[in-house]
């Protein structure tokens, strides 16, 4: 192959003419065109094709991970009032800037955003290319396609119900639950090593208070940043818990922090945030909501 001798042809122009002639004869006589009549016929697009987005409003939790991973800043979160779902935040896409990379679909922790095969998005003005969440909404799209991402059943902790009984830690066959004391509260909280968890569900069965429940979660391909909590800065305002889209921040009262008011009564004890990081999607909303620098998140910008 490499030391093949160069083929100097004595055919002048006849060999290429023979080739073009046979090609023309084939396409004219056998009638197999190489093109299609575009607006009337359409090419079959593969199911992986990345076109216009659809957002499943019921699955979406409004975490804004898609907005943050977008390399072109073409997405934004819009606050809308939905008659069914109440006050929610859902993403919109600016197709004038979108480069259809599909990272928003990959990063979505609940697989609420998909890309369809629709690609005819041209319009006359730039404003019309800004698709708000209502235009992207399609709650039934997920039924039409086969799911690519793998689901996994994981124990999820409800911190409000947990009594620190340590039964779950004793039950776990993989020894992947560790009881970690929560500073200031005097309770212990089970922390689950998700890498070792085999989804056996024994911890959820043994939990008397239904604090651990098995829930389906999608496997994430990305390592997301985790919030770091600084107790001494926390005022217990609860802004982070309100902001958290995955409900993984619990405001727990700290016993022994009650102040004596002027009338002699004791005030309510101070609260602190407790993070259940197994549920965390790494969106950084708590970090942005905190006004007192009590939460740190390296790599996330305010």
């Amino acid at each position, binding site marked *: 192959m490499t030391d093949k001798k160069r083929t100097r042809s004595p055919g002048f*122009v006849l060999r*290429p*003419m023979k*080739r*073009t*002639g046979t090609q023309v004869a084939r396409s004219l006589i056998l009638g197999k065109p190489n093109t299609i009549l575009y607006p009337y016929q359409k090419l079959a697009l593969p199911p992986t094709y990345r076109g216009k987005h659809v957002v499943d409003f019921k699955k979406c939790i409004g975490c804004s991970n898609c907005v943050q991973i977008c390399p072109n800043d073409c997405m934004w979160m819009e606050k809308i009032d939905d008659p069914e779902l109440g006050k929610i935040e859902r993403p919109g896409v600016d197709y004038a800037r979108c480069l259809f990379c599909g990272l928003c679909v990959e990063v979505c922790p609940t697989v609420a955003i998909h890309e369809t095969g629709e690609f005819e998005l041209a319009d006359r003005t730039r404003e019309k290319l800004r698709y708000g969440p209502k235009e992207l909404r399609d709650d039934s799209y997920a039924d039409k396609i086969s799911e690519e991402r793998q689901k996994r059943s994981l124990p999820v902790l409800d911190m409000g119900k947990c009594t620190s009984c340590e039964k779950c830690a004793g039950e776990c066959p993989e020894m992947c639950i560790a009881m970690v004391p929560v500073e200031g509260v005097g309770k212990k909280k089970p922390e689950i090593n998700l890498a070792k968890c085999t989804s056996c569900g024994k911890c959820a069965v043994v939990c008397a208070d239904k604090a651990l429940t098995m829930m389906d979660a999608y496997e994430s391909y990305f390592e997301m940043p985790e919030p770091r909590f600084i107790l001494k800065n926390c005022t217990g305002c609860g802004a982070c818990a309100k902001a958290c889209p995955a409900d993984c921040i619990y405001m727990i009262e700290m016993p022994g922090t009650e102040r004596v008011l002027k009338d002699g009564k004791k005030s309510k004890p101070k609260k602190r945030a407790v993070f259940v990081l197994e549920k965390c999607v790494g969106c950084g909303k708590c970090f942005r909501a905190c006004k007192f620098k009590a939460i740190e998140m390296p790599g996330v910008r305010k």
Partner: protein
Amino acid sequence: MNLFEFSYGIIHWLVDLVNNLWYWLGDVLPWVFGDFFDAVGDFAASHGHIAVMAMLVEALIIIIIGLVNVLNFIWIDRKFMIITPAKVDRMGFLLAPVIFVGSSIAAMCTIPMGFEFYVGTNDTPYSSYPLPGGPEYPGVPASALVAFALFAIAPFAILTAGWSSNNKYTLIGGLRSAAQMMSYEIPMLLCVASVVLLAGSFSFFGIVEAQHDIWFAIPLFLGFIVFLTCLVAEVEIQPFDLPEAEAELVEGWTTEYGGARFGLFMMTGYLRGYIGGALAVAMFLGGWHGPAIIPDPIWFLIKAYIVFVVIEWMRWSVPRVRVDQILNIGWKRLLPLAMLNLLIAAILRTLEVF
């Protein structure tokens, strides 16, 4: 609104315009040309050909409307499309398309397509033999010579266009065209000379008549190939379209032209392709001779188009050559071959095969 609706709207508008003009003209014209129309009416009534006259007038008015449209398009073209760059030499820039188109069409007019199908008068048959006293043919005298002379004017137009455009690409294109056409003129005319030698006539009629028994492409096969190659170079078709090599010289000598002028160049380029085919047919492929089921001019056209298609086929199959290579081919290969071909023709003539 999609394209179909848009074009449908335009056609609808045009039909409305024609109808309105028709009514408008019907009202106004008699008022202006009252006497004339009365006279026409009188003539028609008196001769009883009202229907015929009405049709004639209708045709006349449609032609007038067509002319108005043409003027309209010319106006649009001049207003919005034709751009004459500021620093061109206006004289040459405007004259070049005229010369190019005029000479090409004139060359086409000299080629007869049948014994009864030619441009000229029946009244004055000319002696077309190189020596006086030969057979006499109608049409343009010595039409083969005239055709090739007119065909060879085009390089001057191209050179003028290239020079006057005041652009480096057009200048190189024009000079390439001059070099190429002048070097290919000689082998081509040598082939023509061999044909004339065999036919014994400078008129296309004489040449075609001489091919009644056998096409000249068979004894002079070498000459036919050389002639075809030179023809491709003369009409600037692909392997030899150096003057407008779009990859290196943008669009060659037509770079600065736009609108209808560029359209004229483009159209005339293909017209010259057809003329080349017609010349090859008249010289080598037996002209209008063929089985009598099809009339002569149709035979001629079919043959000319086949040659044209072969040329275009070659155009789409091969790249273009380089400027030094094209001159090498012209002077070092084709010229000796053409001389050899002339020698063959002379031998055939001497042996009185023809």
